[in-house]
């Protein structure tokens, strides 16, 4: 009896060493308590002590936020270990819906006028102008096929990789994630075909000409690459 128990127990957590650190596969059929127990057991008996990144994969088990925290809690006890990622093959319907929403381009054909707020999940494509006093906000990128003269806020949920691009750039303000930049106090003319992005070195919003976009954001349209 005890023997059988031990051998099953051994299958709940499998560790594999790779070039990128350790990958820990968690069984998706047993109870979560069993997973936690064995994880702890395995980590204690692990002899390596160098700093190691571990990626956790729960396969077809859906991990709730609390369960993720419980796993993180266990790993925290081992100073030389850090979690690189927690993955699985599954997501809830809501997450799937959200991912779909955020990975699609929402197009409108109109002028966003003073006092109007146009807000989308995903990338926003405006075929028309954004007038002074008008606002566009998106969880993703903002593309204006017209004059951007109001406010554009890309990456409203915090994605600093997002950009704002316009056929004609003459905004009141551009915001990307939590960064804000505004037009200077002196009169500026505005310029054709530009985009705004957060320069990782300066951590500031900067403008650049459209032809450089591909170099600066090669993965712009790949929403999975943006780390959703």
């Amino acid at each position: 009896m005890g023997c059988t128990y031990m051998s099953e127990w051994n299958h709940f957590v499998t560790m594999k060493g790779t070039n990128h650190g350790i990958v820990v596969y968690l069984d998706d059929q047993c109870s979560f308590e069993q997973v936690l127990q064995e994880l702890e057991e395995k980590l204690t008996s692990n002899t390596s002590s160098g700093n190691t990144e571990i990626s956790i994969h729960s396969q077809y088990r859906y991990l709730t936020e609390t369960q993720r925290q419980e796993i993180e809690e266990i790993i925290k006890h081992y100073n030389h270990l850090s979690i690189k990622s927690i993955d699985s093959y599954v997501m809830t319907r809501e997450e799937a819906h959200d991912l779909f929403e955020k990975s699609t381009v929402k197009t409108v054909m109109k002028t966003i006028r003073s006092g109007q707020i146009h807000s989308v999940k995903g990338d926003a494509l405006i075929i028309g102008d954004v007038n002074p006093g008008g606002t566009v906000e998106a969880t993703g990128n903002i593309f204006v096929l017209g004059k951007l003269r109001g406010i554009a806020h890309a990456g409203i949920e915090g994605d600093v990789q997002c950009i704002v691009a316009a056929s004609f750039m003459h905004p009141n303000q551009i915001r990307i994630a939590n960064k804000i930049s505004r037009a200077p106090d002196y009169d500026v003319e505005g310029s054709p075909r530009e985009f705004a992005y957060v320069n990782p070195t300066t951590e500031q919003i900067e403008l650049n000409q459209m032809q450089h976009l591909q170099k600066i954001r090669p993965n712009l349209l790949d929403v999975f690459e943006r780390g959703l």
Partner: protein
Amino acid sequence: MGESIVITSGKGGVGKTTTTANIGTALALMDQKVCLIDTDIGLRNLDVVLGLENRIIFNLIDVIEGRCKLQSALVKDKRFDCLHLLPAAQTSDKNEVTPEALSDLIEQLKPDYDYILIDSPAGIEQGYKNAVAGADKAIVVSTPEKSSIRDADRIIGLLEQEGLSDPPFLIVNRIRKHMVDSGDMLNVDEIVSTLSIELLGIILDDEDVIRASHHGEPVAFQPNTKASISYRNIARRILGESVPLMSLEDDKGFVTKVKKLLGMK
């Protein structure tokens, strides 16, 4: 069956009342049956601009609250039999009128007129909502100042949600040529490009307009001052004629075309 057109702006004092009086007069000159409605309750002045102040007996609120018949509140113009005014009340406030009451009233007027012009109060609150409720079409008046254009843009945004039969039309009022030339005022092309709606006409800033209002006789009644021609051109465009914009005298930046407004009638 007549057509109702609201004249509105967002910002105050840009010339809604002056425009309403003058387009009304110009349409009457062209033998159209016109009813002007002043919806600026509490601040009425369309009657003053038309010189009809002394003839008012009943007003819009009297009609809505059933104190008189619609017909008896209509004031006939001095100059034209076919031009009537439904004056605003001087003492009540805007909240005594509802959008439904006003649009009912306009429906009652439609069979008797070719055009019903509704002078709207400034702002985007109750008064504006009342004024817009019964309108088939809208004319937005703006001066070439940034703040006025900003408010016009806001109003256009709101009008677009009203389910009008056409997008709003634009009148740019009080243009000062020398200021446009010196770059201290936006030119009409820039304004039209920002607001991206159809331009119905432009009116210069002109003392004749003020003088005429002062004497209670809209400038459009005069035979051929610049301002009166501009207003009559607007009326002709409303009637569906294609009238080119009077250029602001050889100003190159001013070749904005007025498209055929055949849809207006």
